[in-house]
């Protein structure tokens, strides 16, 4: 179908605010790229510049190697699914889907055939005569999808399309979007602030922060080797624990005074941040010996959140203001107020420097690189 190429794309508003600071991104044919980031990071602006709803200040945007910077939205051959669906309230479901085709002068019989086929695909056949206000949230969402699909565009753009749905429907629609996108083999860019949605949908994930791309890669690559502290904290739920550590020769000094044996080769006395995911903190079975190069964190459990399969323990570590979160097995009997010995092994740890950049691979992270 199509490829998408962004080179040093920049968006500056007349009031001087720069929303996008030179974005570089290449989307392959048939790929689903998810752009994720906190509110105000520029992800929606980026999507709107792709759609042609916002002008591009500098840089280049190409669809199928054709420069489209100055083309109208209609001429870019893209379709967009909006957060609030943006269905035309005065038109039936059929007319909503047919509108784009009518505007392009498609023959009546063709329109009928294509709308019916799309309605079939999305299970909307019985709803074609309804008005949007007579539909449930999930149905509206499907009509919005149908309106995009029926035009057979080069690129699909999704602007947080699931955020107005309840949790159960969101999971269902997420799967449906994924299934449809693969089946139609269409190139898609999907914007969301929900990292679970991002992880599950993406072929490739782009994490944005303050108008810049922090990191780009497969969901698992970002999970395993976050390039910055920001990405580390954003990807994964519950979020990664960050412990301030100090380099002491060949060891790292933890906030509670414990020391972790790492052949770091770092400057003595350097202040770093050690990141460890809740699911990589383990407990030690009774009587078992501490593994070599591991260090124990003696914590007090402040709060537990039983999730069924897992239990989240929010614990307090001496010398640290933030709670340390551990994801324990659901069977693990743990009570609020008790002390809990968490084991920090040398594996699956992430080290970030004072600027939040991931440190070049040391022993701590080499283990998990595939």
């Amino acid at each position, binding site marked *: 179908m199509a490829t998408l190429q962004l080179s040093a794309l920049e968006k500056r508003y007349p009031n001087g605010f720069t929303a996008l600071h030179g974005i570089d991104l290449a989307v392959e044919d048939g790929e689903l790229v998810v752009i994720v980031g906190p509110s105000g990071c520029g992800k929606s602006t980026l999507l709107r510049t792709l759609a042609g709803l916002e002008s591009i200040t500098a840089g280049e945007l190409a669809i199928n190697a054709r420069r489209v910077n100055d083309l109208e939205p209609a001429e870019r051959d893209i379709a967009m699914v909006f957060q609030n669906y943006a269905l*035309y309230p005065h038109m039936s479901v059929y007319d909503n889907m047919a509108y784009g085709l009518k505007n392009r002068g498609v023959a009546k019989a063709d329109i009928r055939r294509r709308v019916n086929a799309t309605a079939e695909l999305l299970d909307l056949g019985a709803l074609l005569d309804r008005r949007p206000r007579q539909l449930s949230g999930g149905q509206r969402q499907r009509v919005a999808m149908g309106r995009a699909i029926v035009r057979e565009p080069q690129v699909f753009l999704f602007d947080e399309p699931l955020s107005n749905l309840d949790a159960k429907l969101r999971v269902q629609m997420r799967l449906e979007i994924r299934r449809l996108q693969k089946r139609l083999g269409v190139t898609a860019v999907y914007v969301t602030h929900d990292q679970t949605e991002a992880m599950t949908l993406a072929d490739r994930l782009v994490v944005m922060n303050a108008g810049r791309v922090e990191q780009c890669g497969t969901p698992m690559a970002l999970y395993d080797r976050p390039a910055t502290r920001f990405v580390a904290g954003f990807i994964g739920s519950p979020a990664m624990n960050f412990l301030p550590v100090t380099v002491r020769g060949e060891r790292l000094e933890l906030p509670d005074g414990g020391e972790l044996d790492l052949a770091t080769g770092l400057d003595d006395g350097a202040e770093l941040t050690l990141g460890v995911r809740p699911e990589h903190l383990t407990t030690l079975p009774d009587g078992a010996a501490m593994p070599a190069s591991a260090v124990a964190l003696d914590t007090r459990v402040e709060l537990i959140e039983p999730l069924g399969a897992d239990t989240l323990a929010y614990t307090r570590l001496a010398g640290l203001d933030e709670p340390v979160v551990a994801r324990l097995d659901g069977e693990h009997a743990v009570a609020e107020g008790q002390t809990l010995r968490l084991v920090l092994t040398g594996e699956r740890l992430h080290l970030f420097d004072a600027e939040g950049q991931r440190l070049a691979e040391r022993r701590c992270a080499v283990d998990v690189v595939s």
Partner: protein
Amino acid sequence: MTHFQRYRVTPWLLMAPQLIIVGVFFFWPSLQAVEQAFYVEDAFGLSRQFAGLANFAAVLHEPDYYQALGTTVVFSLSVALGAMAIALLLAVQADRVIKGANAYKTLLIWPYAVAPAVAGVLWMFLFDPTLGLVSAGLESLGIDWNHNLDGDQALLLVILASVWKQMSYNFVFFLAGLQTIPRSLLEAAAIDGAGPWRRFWTVTFPLLSPTSFFLLVMNGVYACFETFATIDTVTGGGPAGATTTLVYKVYEDGFIGQDLGSSAAQSVLLMILVGLLTLIQFRFVERRVQY
């Protein structure tokens, strides 16, 4: 006084000022007019006599009445459609303005704050055959403007003045209506390949239809009743009755001609007519503007 009684009395006390005003200035005179419509009275109001439906019969047999009815139809349609079309055009433009939007809006709303009689005088002077700026301009274009002699020109002038006066009111509502249309709808339409013109007619205009319907009713009522002061100051219903609308005829026959019975009968008929029109609009148009 028990608590219960006080509970019953207080609401009436609070409503009393409004009720008294409405009663004295609306219900009482209205009832008087309805009563009067069934009597013949001498010019000095010294004696009167029950006349049954004779007043109505006389009015309905009078050619002047049908002329006024025809004038009213032309006048009302022109004023309502003209004022709405211009207001919509201005509202669409103002909605797109970003810098100085408030200044534009304020300026466009201003005419509404001008009293109808003042507005009438203003237009009368602009188009005055001997003093007027506009009529002088028209003269240089070879158009002989004299609304004191030419009935069509006179009608056109009162239509212009009334449209100008009502436009601001419509503008406010259209602008508010436009601002309730989500941007994303127009963006979706743009992506769907609709140009600005097509976007307006297939998305914006249909979505404004509840506003348009409301304004159609309000403009109809305005054109029928509230243009009296404008007509009175600009043309005084002339020349030769060319700008005498139904409401102006009520005034002319009643207060100039002192035929109070006929005037009252006409006002009752006018009330019924406008009531019917509004009813028809609600029954047949309103159901088509909901989505």
